[in-house]
């Protein structure tokens, strides 16, 4: 362990929502007990408010700036690491030692909430040491698959170039021996042997044929990508007007990869959900409320939200559609309804702050906040609490209840209760919790069980989160007896929690059901539709969240990732399958080597869709290997040794087996339609992504909004950040950023697909065009003594890639679209070619090569045949080299420009202009540099004087050009037509019926878009309370309640003098 002197002091005058940028030891805060509320959504995706506490000693001793200035302590702590759930340290101060824990730490990425001011000591700072940044992973240089492919192809071309040059060099050697050496007219005065001349000829051909290697390809590709990125930035349909955030392509090198995504890894909180909980519906005494209804109880299709003006405490942001329920409660006729809201206002661990007459609730979970706020609006206003009382306002009258006990939430209990003594002396227990646990504990005579259950099912089908509410009257004697047991349990030293749970169990029975609440975890707009679309495009979506299983599962249902026809497997269930596979493999040791040959049998043999829900703990076993390596390393450094242990059955696993296990896991998970990983750390998120990347060789995309997603965003092939939120970490490390999850479908299905198609078309054409261009030299060399004689004029070679052939293909790369955006979205199947990489791979590359070779062959040999032993119209021999060069070059220009015209499926006036322009520029420049004037000025630079005019006035040569172009293009048209007729792709079909589909789309748009139906699903518990332990401990210890009268140190000015 390293020792760190920390003499840096940091004062954080943190207003609400301040985001921290270092790991800080909390010393003191303006809140009582140096409490500090933090929101950790950036770290773990959990949405509830957590509290951190300063050490008691620093809380007492370091309140004033002067004291802080004299603070001098030694802190010994762990090395910087990536564990967000652990911190160990010791503070030595004034000869005393104080243990430091995670509870004392404010980690980078937290948002400090509801705390006016806090003081802290920076422990880890910067991007290297803070825990969240340690989780951030390395910034990787991302490249697309096509990039890699392209590089390999360029290597291939290089190899080809060397081979061809070597072949021609050998040809030259033989030619020179046979012919060249005897040709007196070729005497060059140099005494060089044939082989040496061959060697020189090799380099000559390397230079002549270098245009085969598409150097300009890289530049052009970057230009196209830049343009495509701009189109993403400019897209109005990815612009979020509410927050004025346009989409942003932060890297310009990955666009075409967007058209090849196979796996999406999504964060939940803030990405799929808005992180807003809304009290949507409820059922009271068997009657459901919440649908739009008038005050008279008439159901409506579209109602007016309730007007809360009658209630001066109401939270105006709260929206509720059922006017009838409000009227009902206000009439005070229904005792159950009154009791329902009273319970909501009493049974919770929310803390309240009265700021300028405004009530501000601090809830441990947003669910709870939503419930208390709902009660508040319905007239049951939670006003204040002390250690043992709760004051609420019931309609017009303030009442204070004595709180006898608070039985807090935890994930096993799934419920919380409060025991209150009413002003009239009655003792009553209020309880709220998951339907499953509550129904077990209901009294036999409890009413409305069935009707409430029906309502719960309805709520569950609407993917609302439900809680059951109930009460129980307790006699004084009964309470006394229980209270004693409770006190005993509180004093237990071992297993106190278990003991307490047991005691709680004894009182929470024979409950009377009042009703149930339904809270909506608001999804971002259009999430279910987007997920459905992406699923149709065969993109698999995994949700990785730090949140709890229930919440994640609930969201899975509400965003239609999970459906009822899916069989859901949990991590624990599939362990068996994994270990049996493992055992099988162990029994057949040889299969390891034959693994690839043996087709993997599916894990899930039953028909139907499957979904997998696993937790971080379970994942750890899969990712075990990596973790252990690191630990072993650390242990070695510490000089200790730990016996290697196995995660499972005690049998040591070797590396190979671990890897096989990972492969098994990935195979299994990929069999599932949907995978949800909950309770995972940022590191684990990234590990899951890299597992899929590694073993599936698939293109992955991560999307997230918080600092906890940074690592996976960096790990995935493409990282997408949700911008417009408060945190910028995810956006800063992302490749693409936009404001809403639903834009993902446009990014992938429209921009990604277009980019991919464009890039593939571009590359195919580019390779083709360079081969068609260059290989003419190759054919010519057979007739020019392998002398590196070029077939075209030098100026043409210089300008070919620059002026004559680049613009049309560049425009295709920028503008081409086979079908428009709306059809791309309507037919997600159009996305499949990208995933399979069918538009550009080695096959296409070689097809392009052969196409190029074929065209070069035609371009050389048709003029060759035409030039052989002939003469011009006026008797002058046209078979001179310059005329030949003009004919081949013209044929080439026509061929490549018409070829790109064939490949262009979206003809704008710009394309038209470019194609005609390229041909026009070719003739313009050619006639210029073949003109008399320019030769007179530069006689030795422009030597083709008159070649163009002489050659091109011969109809014979025009006929040669026409034939050459015809033979180059007609077979392509024929093959394309036959291919599209015999094996039409989805794209071809859509294209063919484009007009029809566009009409259909328009008609659909004229109709009212039907609201997305939240699915109808079977029975399942919709309990998903985003809770951790509530604030019960705090409340019962009374620490936070009483505001300490400590005088704050001096006026603000003196504070600022404190040196940093």
């Amino acid at each position, binding site marked *: 362990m390293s020792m760190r002197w920390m003499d840096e002091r940091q004062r954080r005058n943190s207003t609400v929502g301040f985001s921290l940028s270092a790991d800080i030891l909390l010393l003191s805060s303006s809140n009582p007990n140096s409490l500090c509320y933090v929101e950790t959504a950036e770290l773990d995706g959990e949405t509830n408010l957590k509290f951190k506490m300063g050490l008691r000693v620093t809380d007492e001793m370091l309140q004033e700036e002067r004291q802080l200035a004299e603070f001098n302590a030694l802190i010994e702590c762990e090395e910087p690491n990536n564990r967000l759930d652990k911190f160990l340290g010791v503070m030595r101060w004034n000869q005393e030692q104080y243990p430091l824990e995670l509870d004392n730490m404010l980690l980078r990425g937290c948002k400090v909430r509801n705390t006016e001011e806090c003081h802290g000591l920076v422990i880890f700072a910067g991007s290297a040491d803070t825990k969240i940044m340690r989780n951030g992973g390395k910034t990787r240089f991302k490249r697309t698959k096509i990039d890699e492919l392209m590089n390999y192809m360029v290597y291939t071309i290089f190899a080809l170039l060397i081979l061809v040059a070597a072949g021609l060099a050998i040809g030259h050697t033989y030619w020179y021996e046979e012919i060249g050496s005897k040709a007196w007219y070729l005497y060059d005065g140099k005494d060089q042997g044939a082989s040496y001349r061959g060697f020189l000829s090799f380099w000559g051909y390397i230079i002549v044929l270098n245009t085969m290697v598409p150097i300009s390809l890289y530049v052009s590709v970057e230009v196209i990508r830049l343009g495509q990125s701009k189109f993403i930035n400019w897209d109005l349909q990815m612009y979020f007007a509410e927050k004025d955030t346009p989409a942003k392509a932060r890297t310009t090198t990955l666009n075409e990869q967007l058209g090849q995504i196979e796996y999406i890894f999504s964060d939940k909180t803030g990405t799929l959900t808005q992180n807003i909980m809304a009290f949507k519906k409820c059922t009271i005494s068997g009657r459901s409320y919440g649908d739009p209804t008038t005050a008279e109880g008439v159901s409506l299709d579209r109602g007016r939200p309730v007007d809360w003006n009658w209630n001066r405490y109401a939270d105006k942001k709260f929206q509720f559609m059922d006017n009838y329920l409000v009227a009902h409660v206000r009439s005070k006729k229904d005792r159950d309804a009154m009791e329902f809201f009273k319970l909501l206002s009493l049974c919770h661990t929310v803390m309240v702050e009265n700021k300028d007459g405004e009530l501000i609730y601090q809830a441990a979970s947003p669910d709870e906040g939503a419930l208390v706020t709902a009660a508040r609006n319905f007239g049951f206003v939670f006003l204040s609490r002390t250690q043992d009382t709760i004051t609420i306002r019931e309609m017009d009258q303030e009442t204070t209840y004595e709180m006898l006990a608070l039985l807090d939430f935890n994930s096993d209990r799934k419920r919380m209760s409060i025991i209150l003594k009413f002003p009239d002396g009655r003792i009553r227990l209020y309880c709220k919790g998951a339907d499953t646990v509550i129904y077990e504990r209901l009294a036999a005579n409890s009413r409305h069980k069935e009707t409430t259950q029906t309502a719960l099912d309805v709520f569950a089908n609407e993917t609302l989160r439900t809680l059951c509410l109930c009460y129980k009257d307790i006699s004084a004697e009964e309470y006394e007896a229980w209270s004693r047991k409770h006190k005993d349990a509180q004093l237990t030293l071992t297993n106190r929690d278990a003991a307490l749970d047991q005691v709680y169990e004894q009182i929470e029975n024979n409950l009377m059901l009042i009703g149930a609440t339904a809270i909506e975890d608001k999804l971002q707009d259009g999430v279910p539709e987007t997920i459905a679309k992406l699923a149709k495009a065969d993109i698999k979506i995994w949700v990785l969240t730090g949140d709890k299983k229930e919440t994640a599962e609930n969201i899975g249902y509400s965003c239609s990732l999970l459906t009822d026809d899916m069989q859901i497997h949990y991590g624990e269930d599939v362990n068996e399958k994994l270990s049996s596979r493992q055992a099988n493999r162990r029994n057949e040791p040889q299969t390891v080597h034959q693994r690839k040959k043996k087709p993997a049998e599916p894990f899930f043999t039953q028909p139907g869709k499957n979904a997998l829900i696993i937790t971080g703990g379970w994942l750890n076993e899969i990712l075990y290997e990596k973790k252990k390596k690191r630990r072993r390393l650390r242990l070695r450094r510490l000089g200790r040794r730990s016996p290697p242990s196995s995660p499972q059955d005690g049998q040591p696993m070797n590396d190979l087996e671990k890897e096989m296990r990972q492969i098994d896991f990935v195979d299994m998970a990929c069999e599932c339609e949907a995978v949800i990983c909950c309770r995972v750390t940022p590191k684990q998120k990234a590990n899951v992504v890299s597992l899929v990347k590694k073993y599936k060789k698939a293109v992955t995309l991560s999307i997230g909004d918080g600092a906890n997603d940074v690592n996976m965003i960096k790990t995935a092939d493409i990282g997408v950040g949700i911008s417009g939120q408060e945190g910028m970490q995810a956006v800063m490390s992302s490749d693409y950023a936009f404001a809403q999850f639903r834009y993902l479908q446009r990014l992938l299905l429209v921009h990604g697909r277009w980019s991919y198609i464009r890039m593939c078309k571009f590359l195919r054409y580019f390779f083709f065009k360079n081969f068609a261009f260059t290989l003419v030299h190759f054919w010519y060399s057979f007739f020019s003594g392998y002398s590196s004689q070029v077939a075209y004029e030098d100026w043409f070679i210089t300008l070919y890639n620059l002026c004559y052939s680049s613009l049309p293909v560049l425009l295709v790369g920028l503008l081409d679209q086979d079908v*428009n955006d709306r059809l791309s979205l309507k037919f997600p199947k159009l996305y499949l070619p990208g995933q399979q990489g069918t538009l550009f791979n080695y096959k296409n590359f070689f097809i392009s090569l052969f196409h190029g070779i074929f065209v070069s062959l035609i371009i050389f040999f048709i003029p060759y045949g035409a030039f052989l032993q002939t003469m011009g119209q006026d008797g002058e021999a046209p078979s001179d080299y310059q005329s030949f060069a003009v004919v081949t070059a013209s044929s080439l220009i026509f061929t490549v420009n018409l070829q790109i015209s064939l490949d262009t499926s979206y003809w704008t006036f710009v394309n038209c202009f470019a194609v005609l322009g390229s041909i026009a520029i070719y003739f313009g420049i050619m006639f210029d540099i073949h003109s008399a004037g320019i030769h007179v000025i530069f006689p030795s630079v422009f030597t083709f004087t008159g070649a163009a005019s002489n050659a091109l006035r011969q109809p014979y040569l025009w006929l040669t050009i026409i034939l050459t172009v015809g033979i180059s293009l007609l077979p392509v048209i024929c093959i394309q037509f036959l291919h599209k007729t015999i094996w039409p792709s989805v794209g071809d079909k859509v294209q063919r019926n484009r007009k029809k589909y566009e009409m259909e789309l328009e008609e659909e748009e004229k109709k009212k878009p039907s609201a997305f139906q939240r699915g109808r699903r079977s029975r399942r518990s919709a309990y998903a309370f985003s809770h951790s332990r509530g604030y019960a401990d705090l409340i019962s210890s009374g620490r936070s309640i009483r505001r300490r009268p400590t005088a704050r140190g001096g006026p603000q000015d003196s504070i600022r003098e404190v040196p940093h």
Partner: protein
Amino acid sequence: MVKQEQELDNRPDNTAFTQQRLPAWQPMLSAGIVIPGFVLIGLAFIGIGVALFVTSRSIQVLEIDYTGVAQDSPCYRCSDPDTKNCVCTMDFSIDTLFKGPVFFYYGLTNYFQNYRRYGASKDASQLSGDLEYFKNPSSDCSPYQYDNDKPIVPCGSIANSMFNDTFKLYQIVNGARKQVPLDGKGIAWWTDYNVKYRNPSVTPLRNAFNGTVKPVFWSRPAYELDPTDPANNGFINQDFLVWMRRAALPNFRKLYRRITEGDYAEGLPAGNYSLEIAYNYPVLSFDGEKKVVFSNVSWMGGKNEFLGIAYLVIGSLCIVMSIVMLIVYAKFKFPEED
């Protein structure tokens, strides 16, 4: 609404270009276009092919090899490189009228005028009459740049290897030789004669060549190439210009003279002819052949059946493929499903 838009600074422009909605034409290779297109192109190609083929057949060509490899050849004795100033005579006869204008070519085979170094071995500036380069020829001309430290004009391999056989054509009329007038004017490209190659503006021309030497293989200096016509000397000598225009392929013909004058304006009448050859140019060392070619031309130029046949073949293939495509299309026609 207007006010709102002002607040949204980051809102992208709503133009057809930025939103990728440029008006566009999206053509498809549909059967309705491709199949009739192929038929039309096929028919057109067949038409062109027939025209080319028929024209080509109507062109008369007479080719006479005078290399003298065979021992019974009249030029056999001249083919020995040691023989100087050798003259040989080739006799031939024409059965029918050789329609005029008749063009008289010489042809070389296995001769690589398109060899890169050979092609580069000249000095364009010198040839355009720049006197600077008379003194210092370009190094491209090496090894025919200097001869005994004197600059060679015109320098370089191409000029040095200029074809120097000369021909005289006689018609045998009643046993007597009647010379056929050969017209050597305007056999080179107009641009070569007027633009690209120019003599220095020095009179008399020979003064411009002071201090230079003739190319090694030449028997006469450039300014004395045509003793009969003083205007046809120097760099604008027609034979020189024809030679300097490199051939594209190793077997080539170059225009020597035209037969357009006198009794022969209508062509060469049927009869016996005698060709007198001043045999100077050695080709046997590199297995080359020398030929003399008489030909008349049509609108498409000289005789070449390749292009006509190629057009016919491609045109027929187009027709065949259109039928194939029609059959395939009928079989695999898109079912009207979505």
